[in-house]
């Protein structure tokens, strides 16, 4: 009985999140171009145009438009997709099976191999087996999915020319030679239902490559998680108890260790699922898989708004459902979870209001508009009363208001362009502030310094971390010394534009490495070869490092800034503030990152590199914020913070002098890792053709130039730029991983 109440409660709690997601997608649609565009052709008469306007409610006030949109969403009237000439909801149903078949197989492969590997790696800790599995896992996170996919395609075209490297099935065979009925659109199941072995084999053959590609990334994450959790669990007291009973090593590991380590792993499988959705966008595009992801990209390239929004919304749905299942699973795996858990009044209020809102929307749009406005106004009223009351009682807290308005200002200035200056200045001022009150800070930080000393000592001993440091430093120097490593041509106005690099270019040149002779002239002496348009790959890689560095630094800096401010305040105060911040991050996290970034770029129609940065910041801050918040929650309970509080230090001082400097470990680790992660996203977006002009020196773009040449056996144009991305990400991941292992006391031994 309790069980069902728990499930129902979790189900109810997803409704407000879903409402939040519709607000985001609505904002996206509102912020974009002409909503009539999909319906208008040359033949549309002005009268028809007006009727259309009327029907779509383009001229209605914004609240009416939103409610109409909401009603359309809940009645599955999701609009019309012009790229495939089909109703969106129909298209979703048709294409979902293809995506699902791929994802399920990938998921099974990923989980099925990752968990044993993670366990094995942990019981062989610090031996060669462990090192190789860790490297394998790290490579999985660092290697760009699209590069791996192209690599496999290249390998199969060369070695198995008969192997079809694109599509879902051999159409000729399935439709003409030997047609079977397609009922479920899960081809494997259909083949089994028809009892046809050749069909099954054909479908499987097409599935293997994309599924491998898709699985690898998630597999890497799960291996690392499982290994970490296993190490954690194996150090627990009950493992010693199990040994003291006389169980064998294996029984202890698999019967007592693994089930306990599975619990935290399962909670993160939901995130792994988001990774699958992100990955399927790229995988499906490369393998021309007729699923949702490929459709979404086509839609984004041609500004098919209803399709973009529908896909975004649908991904969020999937993600929320996946997390729901994971939560329920978690409650069953771990007997310690309180199934009862009582809902707070605020929670029940939010849930019941959301449900009411949906119901009313369904019945009458006008009533819903008033209802929604009423809720909004009363929420704002109640909120201001609560805030007012609190400030009246503790006037000291006024600074939070300033802080939040300050953050808002910074975020707005990000959007207006001159943000880096502000962020550099505020970081500088904060460091000055720390220096000024150094005596106080030092006291709390003393143990941290020891940790850092230990860290430096250990970095010297860990070969993988050294490798990471080496990679990072070399790539940074390439970015810095670009003008000397690859001098732009004399006529070139903008060194970042490859089109301008040489006036006369030879295309499809193989690399000549170090033997490029002077007499062959610059034009045909391409160190790393040239692309189909004659772009010099070496030049592109060298200058592309500047794009990567630029984007990564800006996004990481801004994201950290927002996350640190909001996360620290939210975690330190807890309570209402925390609730609100967490619900907002919930909504953002519910939409898989790459999908949201793509949707923002596509819908604004602004394909500049700046827009790409903004979208990455929007995608990135919630994750950051959560980690910082969790840290702040933990830190505020530390004894010396309580002591500082008892001594009458103001919250402002405590947060800035004690809480933030104490988060420094996590901030450094996350920021380092995300320097890699952001370049991976940048490259993925670039590969899909978003962000910056078509000839911008950017690694992902360069890879996409090589995509079509694979069949000709030209490997260099996708290989080298992708290698650069992988090395960049690997460098930062290794470094971040090394630092975390060292600074996390649990990992010490």
């Amino acid at each position, binding site marked *: 009985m309790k069980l069902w109440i728990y499930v129902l409660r979790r189900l109810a709690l997803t409704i407000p999140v879903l409402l939040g997601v519709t607000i985001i997608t609505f904002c996206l649609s509102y912020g974009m171009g002409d909503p009539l565009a999909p319906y208008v052709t040359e033949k549309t008469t002005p009268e028809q145009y007006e009727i259309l306007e009327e029907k779509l409610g383009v001229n209605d006030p914004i609240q009416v438009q939103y409610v109409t949109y909401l009603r359309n969403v809940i009645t599955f009237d999701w609009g019309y997709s012009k790229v495939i000439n089909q109703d969106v909801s129909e298209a979703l149903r048709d294409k979902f099976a293809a995506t699902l078949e791929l994802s399920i197989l990938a998921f099974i492969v990923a989980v099925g191999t990752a968990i044993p590997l993670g366990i094995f790696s942990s019981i062989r800790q610090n031996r060669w087996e462990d090192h190789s599995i860790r490297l394998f896992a790290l490579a999985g996170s660092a290697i760009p999915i699209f590069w791996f996919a192209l690599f496999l395609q290249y390998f199969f075209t060369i070695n198995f020319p008969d192997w079809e490297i694109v599509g879902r099935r051999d159409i000729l065979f399935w439709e003409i030679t030997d047609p079977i009925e397609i009922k479920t659109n899960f081809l494997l199941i259909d083949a089994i239902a028809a009892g046809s072995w050749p069909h099954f084999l054909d479908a499987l053959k097409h599935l293997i490559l994309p599924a491998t590609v898709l699985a690898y990334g998630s597999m890497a994450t799960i291996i690392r998680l499982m290994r970490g959790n296993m190490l954690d669990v194996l150090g627990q*007291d009950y493992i010693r*108890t199990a040994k003291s009973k006389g*169980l064998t090593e294996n029984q202890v590991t698999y019967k007592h260790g693994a089930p306990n380590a599975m619990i935290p792993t399962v909670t993160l499988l939901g995130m792994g699922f988001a990774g699958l959705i992100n990955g399927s966008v790229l995988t499906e595009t490369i393998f021309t898989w007729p699923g949702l992801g490929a459709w979404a990209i086509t839609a984004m390239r041609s500004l098919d708004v209803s399709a973009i929004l529908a896909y975004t919304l649908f991904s969020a749905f999937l993600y929320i459902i996946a997390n729901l299942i994971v939560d329920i699973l978690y409650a*069953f795996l771990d007997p*310690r979870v309180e199934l009862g858990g009582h809902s707070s009044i605020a929670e029940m209020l939010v849930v019941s209001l959301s449900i009411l809102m949906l119901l009313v929307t369904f019945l009458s749009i006008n009533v819903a508009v008033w209802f929604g406005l009423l809720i909004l106004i009363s929420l704002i009223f109640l909120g201001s009363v609560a805030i007012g009351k609190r400030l009246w009682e503790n006037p000291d807290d006024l600074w939070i208001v300033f802080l939040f308005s300050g953050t808002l200002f910074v975020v707005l200035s990000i959007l207006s362009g001159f943000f880096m200056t502000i962020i550099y200045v505020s970081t500088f001022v904060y460091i000055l502030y720390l220096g000024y009150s150094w005596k106080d800070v030092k006291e709390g930080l003393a143990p941290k310094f020891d940790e850092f000393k230990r860290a430096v000592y250990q970095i010297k001993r860990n070969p993988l971390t050294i490798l990471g440091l080496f990679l990072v430093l070399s790539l940074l120097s390439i970015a810095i010394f670009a003008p000397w490593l690859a001098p732009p041509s004399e006529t070139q106005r903008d060194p970042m534009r490859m089109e301008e690099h040489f006036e006369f270019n030879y295309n499809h040149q193989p690399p000549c490495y170090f033997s490029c002779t002077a007499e062959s002239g610059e034009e045909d002496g391409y160190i790393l070869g040239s692309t189909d348009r004659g772009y010099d790959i070496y030049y592109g890689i060298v200058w592309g490092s500047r794009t990567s560095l630029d984007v990564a630094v800006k996004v990481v800096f801004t994201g950290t800034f927002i996350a640190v401010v909001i996360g620290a305040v939210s975690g330190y105060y807890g309570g209402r503030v925390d609730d609100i911040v967490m619900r907002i991050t919930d909504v953002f996290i519910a939409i898989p990152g790459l999908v949201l970034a793509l949707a923002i770029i596509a819908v604004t129609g602004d394909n500049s590199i700046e827009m790409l940065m903004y979208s990455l910041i929007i995608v990135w801050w919630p994750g950051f914020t959560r980690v910082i918040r969790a840290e702040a929650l933990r830190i505020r309970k530390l004894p010396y913070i309580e002591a500082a509080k008892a001594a009458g230090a103001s919250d402002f001082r405590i947060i800035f002098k004690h809480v933030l400097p104490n988060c420094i470990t996590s901030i450094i680790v996350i920021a380092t890792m995300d320097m890699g992660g952001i370049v991976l996203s940048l490259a993925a977006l670039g590969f899909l053709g978003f962000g910056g002009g078509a000839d911008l020196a950017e690694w992902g773009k360069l890879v996409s130039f090589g995509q079509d040449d694979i069949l000709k056996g030209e490997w260099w144009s996708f290989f080298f730029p992708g290698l650069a991305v992988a090395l960049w990400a690997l460098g930062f991941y290794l470094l971040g991983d090394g630092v975390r292992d060292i600074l996390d006391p649990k990992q010490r031994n």
Partner: protein
Amino acid sequence: MLEIKDLKTNFNTYDGVVKALDGVNLSIKDGEIFGLVGETGSGKSVTAYSVLKLLPKTAEIVAGKIILNGEDITDATEDRLRQIRGGEIGIIFQDPLSALNPVMTVNEQVGEILVLHQDAEINKLAYEKEIPVYKSEKWKSSPGVEFTIMAICISFISLFTMIGQFTFGLPFLFVIGIMFLRDYLQKEVPESALDLMVIEALSRVKLPNPKQIASSYPHELSGGMQQRVMIAMALAGKAKMLIADEPTTALDVTIQAQILQLIKDIQKEENMSVLLITHDLGVVAETCEKVAVMYKGKIVEEASVDQIFTNPQHEYTKALLNAIPKGGKERLKVPEIGEAGAI
């Protein structure tokens, strides 16, 4: 019973080698309660773990001999060690909650050690009473498996419904139905011999309502009950010796006394040897016959309890004795054990 000769154990850490034990000598006779006292960090736990080789991987026994009933077990094989652990020497720890596996029921955890060391007994009981040996439907007792299956079924059903192919979900619906029905069909599962033995082991440590406790998870029990379960587990394999590593430190005072009394009672009934590790001389005075004082990885004094209290030899022992608050001995006067349910 147990003899430790010149035992040296080192830890290899990043900061260098830590000599946790630096020549420990101990000798525990049959049927004796032996106290081991010392300040924190003096190496009491490491001594206990060294005997059963329960040390972390970074530790290494570099010298010394461990002799159990005349048999040198210093270099015993892994197989022999497993017989000793739980079968000949049982051990309990300071914090019972973290020492019990949080995702297994008491029944499973106690049952495990019975299967390892009392298999013949279980079979005999099953044969005599004509009942099943082990639990006939093992997976029923693990909700994890059951609900994982349930969750998978539900997700498949919802997925198939989403793509408009509800019929494909029917088999999964069927599975769920069976799982619900099964609960009704299996109400009358006969108790297995293993169950009976577990319940017997639990009643030996005077746990009230052992049947219900057997089916609970550790976090559902109070601290005192958890420690009793630990004791039941340590003794279930019919061990002739119990090592108790600060068994009462994590408990509050009245329960401490009850647990100590329980250990004393059981020791008397079965004529066991007990190595009682503590940093509380009051406990030693109440419970033990002989005592050794440990300091910085060495035994600095070994004597009978009376001698230690009346005529301490070593400076450190004197310091320890002075640290006991006045009336400390009175405070620990063991109260009559009342209803165990009062825990």
